[in-house]
């Protein structure tokens, strides 16, 4: 694949993402329409008169034809206007802007944890397939997938953060150091359920790579040690997990929503949960959009990464 080919590949995938994004927007917009309850009533509060309600409807553009409302919605989204929270005190875009870094840091730290845990255990397990370590790791992994993330979170809070005092019990930090410290336990709770998935994929990749002819050929050609592991095992074993990247990310995102509420991290997931609990339409709508766009983007990055790692992938 030439550089030019890759460029076009990325471009084409970007173009393909556009209709998907539009449909997503339409769906997110449609959410508001199918929700039981009158958004105007929500805004006006219980004591509003009929006239006030009508005025609010006009103000919100709810009296216009649906397609026009959608066009307006697109326009507002394009300018970053996602409305305000139900109490009216905060813009949804502000909420997203302040929550995004938190969620991103959480995802980044748990990705590091996940990769390190999965990588180490996969290498250990693949050393002797069906050996003691492999079986043991498989059992632990089964537990890891089965442990409810939120439960692990509260157990970590009560069982680790409280007695050691080394981590904040809920909440976020304001300096890089405190932020990282606040991210450790939530990221760990998150990784425990995701790492086994990556581990299994990596492990089978490693086993497969070790059994491969090119691995033998490389050894025969005198390649050994870390070079052998890195270039003839890990790099090849990374291809299947990277193609899982999008799936893993959605799993991580799902987990982040849970973990953020367990640990009280002011990220997008906590906002989503609280909006669902408080029935805050605009917030749900805005966050759904952000999350799904993020997944579209991750899918895109995943495809490109696979193409970079595995030159055989047709572009």
């Amino acid at each position, binding site marked *: 694949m030439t550089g030019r080919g890759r460029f076009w590949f990325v471009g084409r995938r970007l173009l393909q993402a556009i209709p998907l994004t539009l449909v997503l927007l339409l769906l997110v917009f449609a959410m508001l329409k199918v929700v039981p309850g009158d958004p105007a009533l929500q805004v006006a509060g*219980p004591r509003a008169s009929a006239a006030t309600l009508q005025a609010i409807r006009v103000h919100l553009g709810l009296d216009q034809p649906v397609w026009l409302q959608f066009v307006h919605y697109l326009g507002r989204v394009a300018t970053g206007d996602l409305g305000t929270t139900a109490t009216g005190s905060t813009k949804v875009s502000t909420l997203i802007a302040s929550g995004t870094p938190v969620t991103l840091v959480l995802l980044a730290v748990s990705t590091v944890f996940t990769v390190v845990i999965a990588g180490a255990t996969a290498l250990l397990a693949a050393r002797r397939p069906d050996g003691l370590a492999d079986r043991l790791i498989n059992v632990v992994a089964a537990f890891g997938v089965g442990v409810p993330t939120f439960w692990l979170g509260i157990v970590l809070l009560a069982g680790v*953060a409280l007695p050691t005092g080394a981590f904040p019990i*809920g*909440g*976020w930090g304001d300096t890089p150091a405190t932020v990282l410290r606040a991210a450790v336990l939530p990221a760990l709770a998150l990784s425990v359920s995701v790492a086994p998935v990556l581990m299994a994929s990596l492990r089978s990749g490693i086993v497969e790579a070790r059994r491969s002819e090119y691995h033998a050929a490389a050894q025969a050609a005198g390649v050994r040690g870390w070079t052998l592991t890195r270039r003839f095992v890990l790099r090849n074993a990374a291809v299947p997990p990277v193609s899982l990247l999008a799936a893993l990310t959605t799993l991580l995102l799902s987990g982040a929503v849970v973990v953020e509420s367990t640990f009280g991290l*002011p990220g997008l997931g906590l*906002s989503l949960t*609280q909006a669902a609990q408080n029935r805050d339409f605009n917030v749900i709508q805005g966050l759904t959009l952000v999350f799904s766009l993020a997944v579209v983007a991750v899918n895109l990055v995943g495809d490109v990464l696979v193409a970079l790692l595995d030159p055989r992938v047709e572009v």
Partner: protein
Amino acid sequence: MNTWTKPAAALAAAALVAGCGSGTGGAAGGSGTGAVKADNDLVIGRTVAVDGMSGDSCYGAGSISTMPMIYGNLLTNKPDGSGVQPGIAASYDYDASARTYTFHLREDAGFSDGSPVTGKDVAFSFEQWRDGKTSGAYYDMVKSAEAPDEHTVVVHLTRPDTFLPALLTWCTSTVYPHDYAGKKPEEFFTKPIGAGPFAFVSWQNPGPSETITLKKNPHYYGAAKGEPHVDTVITKTSADAAQQMLAFQGGQLDLIEGLTADEGNQLPAEQARIPKPSQARDLMLNSKRPALADVNLRKAISAAIDRQALASVQQGYVVPATGMLPTNVPNSVPPTTPYTFDLAAAKALMAKRADQKPVTLTLGFEGASSTLTTMAQLLRDQLAQIGVDVTLKPSDSATVYSQGQSGDYDMLISDLSAISPTVFDPISFVLAAWSPWTGADSALLKEKFTEGTTTTEDSVKDAAVRAIQDDAQAQSTVIGLVNMSTAFAVADYVEGFTATPFLSYDAAAVRIRTGS
């Protein structure tokens, strides 16, 4: 969020007025265990975010606590809630008709930017309050405010009003520098300047998980007394109360605002500060439903409720209700005969029903609240004793609200508190919102309401309230369950903290025992 009351109700209107409140809350001071903290920073946990940085938007418990810290008030609540005391105003007087108030300002009050608090600033603030979009209505009697000199403010009212001094202790009565120190309001409220004990430093992640950092205001009028005692106040908001408890137990929080019984019971007694209960939790019965149209059933339900048992689950934070109205609000008097738990009487009433069909009722409540859930479960068990089968319908607050409004439930648990310092406010609420839902006969309620709000005589007011309570009991469409406190958790090394029944406390008086 409450179901029927405006959330603002929670603020329970300050204090108001002498004579009514009695001593409340735990005694000041630590437990004497000798515990110390390494730094002189007060870290506060709460579950409700502030409503913004302007007094006008002050609405919920977060702002009620934070606004006075930043801005200060002309008058403040006495620590025991028994009346008002000087704040930025050293004293005030009013003319015989109560239409013109004169405030004499302290000379040592200063904003956090170093400028002194002058009459001009206060007069400007009065206008801002009156013109506020959200809370302006409270101040609609203010005609004008002027500053004849640096330390005097004269306020002219459109009508007589003796409620103004109490109003000035509210979180909406925030003292601003004149003309917002030359800034646009939006700009000013991103980094506000106030005359309270603490100066604004930062507000991170505004919203349910926000952190607000304040530091000592050296120009605070209490500086001469050494107030405020702590260097920094850091307020951490988290929706998860259980997690906040862990943080408190782990020494990461020094103070928790809004402690529930479940949480408080996890703490040593001396760490929980519980003021007098001042919020009513009532059971509403929909008499438009065929079964509930029979007053005998409604009365039977009331008699079958063991309020003592309901309260015992939240030992110390909740007391059995004697009537349907919030207690510890001025002019709140109990009904002639308080509720009694009498199963035999309840069964007798059940037998007197015109129609002897088995009774199955739905009960709506906000499922997210653990105390409500517990209470609903107990109610179901208790009503089963008289053969009333209750189906629990937990839901989120909005659904409870919309379905409650459309009458989808037979019964609804709802909270009632004052949003201004008179019991007639919650009464107006019952009249406007609850009576239509319950289908009660509100003729007497209306009459007594008018009677009570046109007199200045406390005895007349009290009599009207008693009649209303008695009427509610007779109709049994609104049945009082319990009265609740909102409490605080206070670490051993925190001294000088006094809880009032109104969610507010004087942060300037709080001390931290440090190692030195």
